[in-house]
């Protein structure tokens, strides 16, 4: 009963050609998608890798892998350079600036979104224009104002200055998010007896979560990285923040690359953590704010 040649099942040819097509598609997908993404990832990850290598390998080592691993540079930055204190200050300034920026941006954004008043467009233009003024230009006027308010050498000056610089963009972004929430929903809540504030808190605010996260994270990261204000408005060793501490690792005639890299890792950790937690809201938030603004 042998047929001599094994008969190929009917669907086998189709399956094989389908498999070839799939393989072709997969190859095309790899070439179009994964290769460019891989290259881009390599481009962005390599500097971080080098930062980790310098942070974890002993001084004087030139190996491309951090082995043997040492934490001496982290000890240097944390204990000797004073990162423990700088980190604490950065967290205080970053969190307060985040809270202040977010609260004020919601208030300002609501006004721009829901009310039509004379000069509204001009106000938006002025808000945008403030983004063109570099912080360095305002250093001396701000310094004088803070001095007369008794805020020099206080973290309060950094929180105020950073909040003020974060606000224009944050208000514009937030106004876009609020506009995306139909006013009719708010009106319905008011018809049911809510005040405007209650309607906003109960109906609008829960829908603003992506916007709040986008605005808050931008405010936090901008404040966290701000070197200029942190150095200029503070002249007390115990009130400096992380970016000032980071610059201590480069002296006039010498640079401690291990400490610089370890400091960079410590400075990057909170920012990376913030992004890791919020990234799914952030993408949605940015696109919503951009398109519907």
């Amino acid at each position, binding site marked *: 009963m042998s047929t001599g040649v094994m008969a190929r099942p009917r669907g086998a040819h189709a399956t094989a050609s389908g498999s070839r097509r799939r393989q072709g598609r997969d190859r095309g997908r790899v070439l179009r998608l994964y290769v460019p993404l891989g290259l881009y990832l390599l481009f962005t990850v390599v500097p971080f890798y080098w930062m980790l290598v310098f942070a974890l390998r002993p001084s004087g080592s030139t190996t491309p892998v951090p082995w043997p691993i040492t934490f001496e540079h982290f000890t240097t930055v944390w204990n000797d350079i004073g990162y423990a204190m700088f980190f604490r200050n950065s967290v205080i300034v970053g969190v307060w600036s985040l809270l202040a920026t977010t609260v004020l941006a919601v208030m300002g954004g609501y006004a721009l979104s829901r009310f039509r008043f004379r000069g509204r467009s001009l106000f938006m233009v002025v808000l945008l224009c403030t983004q063109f003024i570099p912080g360095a230009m305002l250093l001396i006027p701000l310094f*004088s104002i803070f001095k007369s308010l008794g*805020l020099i050498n206080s973290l309060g000056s950094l929180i105020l200055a950073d909040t003020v610089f974060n606000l224009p963009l944050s208000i514009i972004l937030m106004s876009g998010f609020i506009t995306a929430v139909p006013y009719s929903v708010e009106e319905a809540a008011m018809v049911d007896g809510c005040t405007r504030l209650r309607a906003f808190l109960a109906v609008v605010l829960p829908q603003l979560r992506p916007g709040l996260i986008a605005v808050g994270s931008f405010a936090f990261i901008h404040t966290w990285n701000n070197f200029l204000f942190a150095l200029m408005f503070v002249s007390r060793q115990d009130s400096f923040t992380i970016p000032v501490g980071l610059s*201590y690792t480069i002296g006039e005639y010498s640079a401690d690359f291990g400490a610089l890299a370890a400091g960079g890792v410590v400075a990057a950790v909170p920012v990376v953590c913030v992004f890791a937690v919020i990234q799914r809201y952030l993408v949605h938030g940015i696109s919503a704010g951009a398109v519907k603004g």
Partner: protein
Amino acid sequence: MKSTKAWAALAVLALAVAGCGSGSGSQEPGKTTITFWDNNGGTRTPIYQELIKRFEAANPTIHVEYVGIPIASVQQKYDTAIAGGDTPDVGGVTTSYLANLVGQQALEPADDWLGKSAVNGKLAAPMIKSVRDTVTDGKLYLVPGTSNMDVVWYLKDKLPEPPATWDEFFTDTAELTKAPDQYGYTIRGGAGSIFQVLAEMYAYSGVTQFFDASGKSTVNDPKNVEYLTKLAAMYKKDTPEADVTNDFPKMVAAFGTGKIAMMHHNLGSYNDHVKAHGADKIGAFALPAGASGKRTIVANPVDGFAVFKGSEHKDAAWKFVEFLVSKESNSYWNQQTGQIPANTEAQGDSWVTGLPHLKTAVDVLNDPATAVVSPPYYLPQFSSITKADTEPLFQKVLLKQMSPQEFLDTMAQKLTDAQAEWKKAHGG
């Protein structure tokens, strides 16, 4: 009611903001608090903390508040503080920006204090002269604490005997270069390149003045052009290609890999080289003398301490400055940083004579036969001319996009113009 709550919340927020981290003004009764800004905060912080501890123990009625300012931003910090009227009592200042601070009338001259002080006559005369030459009225606005000198660092296992002449230097550089990645020399092509090029050119040419009698810059002297032509020819042949963007951290890091035999920098990077290679493998020699046989060096900026005019405790501030430049303190500070003490008594300490590179530097500086070329730090445009204006042009020279002659003519013209303008402004 609700709006009252909201306003109350805002008021609490504002109060909390205003109070954050503010702790200044915690004055102890009966104590004078002075603020000291270190103009190179970071690695030097523990040194100053130790010295402040010693000072406070010797002067229990004075408390010194230390603030470390990152070196890259120190001028901007001083300018902002002066404009805002919030200067420290004592600040670390170098001759690089001394004229700028004096121009803003921010500093108190120390001549009278020094005249009555125990350290009078014990500070290196060339450093004092360099400070006085930097300002128009010749007053001592800065009390020198240290100075530096350009040297060429080399790896002893690659170069057993350092070159004594420029010809030997060029020969050694070529011989020590071996494919694929061993280089005889590294050029500083990025930030800070011009000062090093000037030091090399003047050492080679033996020209001893930055301007001739008519006020014309000597930067484009034919011998300087000759040196720069030779240096540019070395780029990529005997030096790494990446040198075109070398600032000092990159240059020091590249030298730390052990692939480069010689590197021109100053005494300040000694600790980095020791960390990378070990003290026994590192050597240093002063830039060789040129064909004239006369050793010529370009004066490095003098680093020291200034009392600010805005200080409310000038006597306590001077007391601290006097303590910092005393033999013990000055010796301790310079031993830790590996630089040349300004206090001549400290220059004789065993740690100075025991470090060959430092002894070489002190001997060269104190040798009456050494000609010192003083760069015109007093010119307001000097910093911009030697940084923003000409650093990119020097990169063009290395990349063969500009000739050395054209480059030096351009720089000379800018310096000549700046000098003429300065002379005019000061009745010259």
